């Protein structure tokens, strides 16, 4: 691990919750403005999180809490591997592992809404997983390495060779960040038919851990968006930052204008996008290289 890697990991571990909370706060304000409301303070997500950890710890059974903690640990872990410049496939695999623990936590409470949420989460994983894996493949084909470190030191931004992958990845980001129309398993909004589903039976600090994990995941995901633009030229970081802001804005917009879809539509849409955007780009890339 390089010095830069170490610094990046430390910054990631310490600052991610703040950065993600801030972004989420901005997102809420932007959303409110789109709807003609004033919206909460930018710091509201931070207050919410802090409050969760101050609550009494309760749980439904004795394995629920440890499973959520494992989820949080692996979510943070995958981000750490990413920012340390490690293997991007390993990042995705470890992220999957994290998801599995959250799903098991939801299953363990043996309740209708949690259970339904858990299975919908599995469906969402099935929908976005192929594209996520293909993104890694795309990086490998265009840069010649799975390692984030090497991808970052390319001379040309990856997005030039892999626009299809970029579109596909952003599509999956909508699912991953639980934005409408694809927030089937659980939602940031109160008006969801499975009533918080996946996280429905989490409360207090345990819920706090799942929220914390989500914040770290968000930073990781946006990091990957940035990775499409970063090259050995330091100025590319600016381009990456701009790209991240644009992507985030689009996410808010999409979240606001599309109503939630049925699961068949989600799966079909995700796989069709994967096949055409990712697959076509893959074919072209493998011809070039």
């Amino acid at each position: 691990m390089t010095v830069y890697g170490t610094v990046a990991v430390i910054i990631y571990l310490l600052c991610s919750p703040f950065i993600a909370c801030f972004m989420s706060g901005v997102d809420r304000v932007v959303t409110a403005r789109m709807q003609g409301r004033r919206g909460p303070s930018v710091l509201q997500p931070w207050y919410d999180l802090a409050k969760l950890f101050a609550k009494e710890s309760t749980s439904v059974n004795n394995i629920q809490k440890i499973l959520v903690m494992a989820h949080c640990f692996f979510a943070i872990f995958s981000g750490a591997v990413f920012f340390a410049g490690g293997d991007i496939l390993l990042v995705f695999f470890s992220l999957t592992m994290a998801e599995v623990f959250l799903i098991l936590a939801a299953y363990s409470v043996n309740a209708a809404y949690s259970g339904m949420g858990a299975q919908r989460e599995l469906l969402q994983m099935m929908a976005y997983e192929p594209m996520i894996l293909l993104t890694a493949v795309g990086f490998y084909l265009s840069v010649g390495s799975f390692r984030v470190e090497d991808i970052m030191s390319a001379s040309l931004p990856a997005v030039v060779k892999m626009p299809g992958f970029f579109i596909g990845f952003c599509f999956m980001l909508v699912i991953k960040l639980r934005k409408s129309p694809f927030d089937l398993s659980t939602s940031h909004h109160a008006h969801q038919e499975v009533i918080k589903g996946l996280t429905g039976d989490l409360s207090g600090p345990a819920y706090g851990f799942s929220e914390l994990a989500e914040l770290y995941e968000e930073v990781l995901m946006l990091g990957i968006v940035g990775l499409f633009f970063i090259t050995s030229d330091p100025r590319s970081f600016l381009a990456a930052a701009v790209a991240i802001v644009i992507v985030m804005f689009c996410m808010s917009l999409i979240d606001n204008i599309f109503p939630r879809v049925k699961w068949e539509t989600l799966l079909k849409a995700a796989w069709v996008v994967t096949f055409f955007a990712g697959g076509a780009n893959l074919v072209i890339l493998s011809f070039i290289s």
Partner: protein
Amino acid sequence: MPVLAFLILFPFAVAFILFFMKKDSKGRSVIATGGALAELVAAVCFAADNFLHHDLTMGTYYLSETHTADMVIAAGELCLMLLVFSQAIKHHKYYILFLSALGTIPALYLDLTGISETSSAHLKVDHLTVIMVLIVGIVGSLICIYAVGYIRDYHHHHTEYQDRSGYFLSMLFVFLGAMMGLISSDNLSWMYFFWEITSVCSFLLIGYSKTPEAVTNSFRALWMNLLGGCGFMAAIVFCVCVMEITNISQLLLFATIPAMAVFPVAMLSFAALTKSAQMPFCRWLLGAMVAPTPTSALLHSATMVKAGVYLLLRLSPMMYGTYTGIMVTVIGGFTFFAASLLAITVSDGKKILAYSTISNLGLITAAAGCGISEAVWAGIMLLIFHAVTKSMMFMSVGAYENSTGSRDVEDMHGMIVRYPKLAFVMTIGIFGMSVVPMGMCVAKWAALKAFIDSGYVYLTLFLCFGSASTMFYWIKWLGKIFSVSRESRKHEDTVHRSEWAAIYPLTFTAMLLCLVYPIISAFVVNPYVQTAFNGSLNRLTAPGPADDLAGSGPELIAAISTEDFVIMGVMLICMCILPLGMKYVNTVQERRVLSYMSGFNTGNDRSFYDSQGEEKEQFLSNWYMNEVFGEKKLLRPCLMLTSAFLIVIMTACTIGGLFI
């Protein structure tokens, strides 16, 4: 040589004794367990001896003068044919007669006229053989030990079936012996003989309970495998009469003039596809579920289906860039994807395992068809991990069925509280099959890299989509196990001691493999891959991997770098300390709350008051998506598609191989 002879012949001897011990007795248990243990020890000794005293890179050859043995084998083939004939006539399945004769008569002709007699060695031991001997010896023997206790419980629960347990155990041992023979044969005719034994043996085992369903399924298995056997025979006839060779290692030398070897390679691959239950032949393996669980465990993990992929891995250097290679990769990749979708829609534990086997074998098949060294590395690794993990899964499902009377995943609800030991084993098994720091996924990862490097774009796509659906069916199963119902109690564990004696070592091996696979890779798999793809075969290796192979040391095929390995080690340790962490977290006393049920929870998490104020029990079921991926909807089109594809390519290969 004596150890090898022991490995092959000893199981037959044990089988012979067991065949006549019809009644369940202590003596029989001792003989079966002892026999299996002896086989296991012999396999380990054989492997150790070969590593220490032989040059496995070149391979060790045995038995060049075999006139008597050839005659014995001819007699054996005749007996097999007569056995199949009698069964076919008894059940009025006359097409079987034709298939069986078509495969056996040329074999007898070649043997008796002495056309195929050769002075080259009949048995060959190299790295791949040693790996297979270890798999068959360890996993197969443990399954036989498991079977001793299982079959007793089985007849205890199923009094409607005639107790033929001596015959059953005897067949399992025949299987072991045949498998040992198959993997050490270099001579194609000998290999064919053992190949046919496994076909007939599986037929007899599947039909064990003699119910109409069992009989139908057993005949389905038989005709598909005999058809494959006919393909095998066609390859042999061509090799002997046209190419004037008798051994598989001689066939591999034709890699430099592949046009000559198109026909035999295509035919052997076809035989391997039937044996490995690839689409369109996957239905025989699904039907094999009706047999008692040790049969399934043996067919799915250590023997039978592994014989097919073993042959493909052997032939792999001949496949790069050929039509046969395309056939094998497309069928394998498609089977991987389609079977994983189909697995989502079934709830019978054994059926899920069957689909998962088909799916994973598809991946190994695809890896073999790529014909590049990295892919073969991944294929062999997959084969090792799959054998251990899958046998363990089958055994725990079987043990659960004997304890509760059901093997349906829906009935495994809350298993973690009711049967914690079995739940632990299954959790290891499912993690082993589906998430990354564990074995299977590591090999899958290597396969992904190999597919990209080999330029087979469609394989990359199949793998990405297939892994996503694989995840779905495993994790929802795991979720069922983890559902904790309030006030449920631990149930009495009635799993037989001999069953634990097989399950625990395998669980331990599965975990150990995750840590030691780099050693296996460095000392066994890499040397094999290097030998198989070196020198004159350079042409076959895709750009890239060949250069990697030449220069690097033990770390070699660098799909998984040391750094990644360390990170995965960390993940594995974290997963292992999880149960301990649970103890610690639970030392802090906290309030238990009821789960959320929308309607008012009646206070036990099991029922709620509905909108009419009436008490309703909650029932949770998993999601099977039958309307989208259902067997009824998906299976037939898949089979038709693959059949059509297979027919086209096989016709092309036959015409191309025979006439051009």
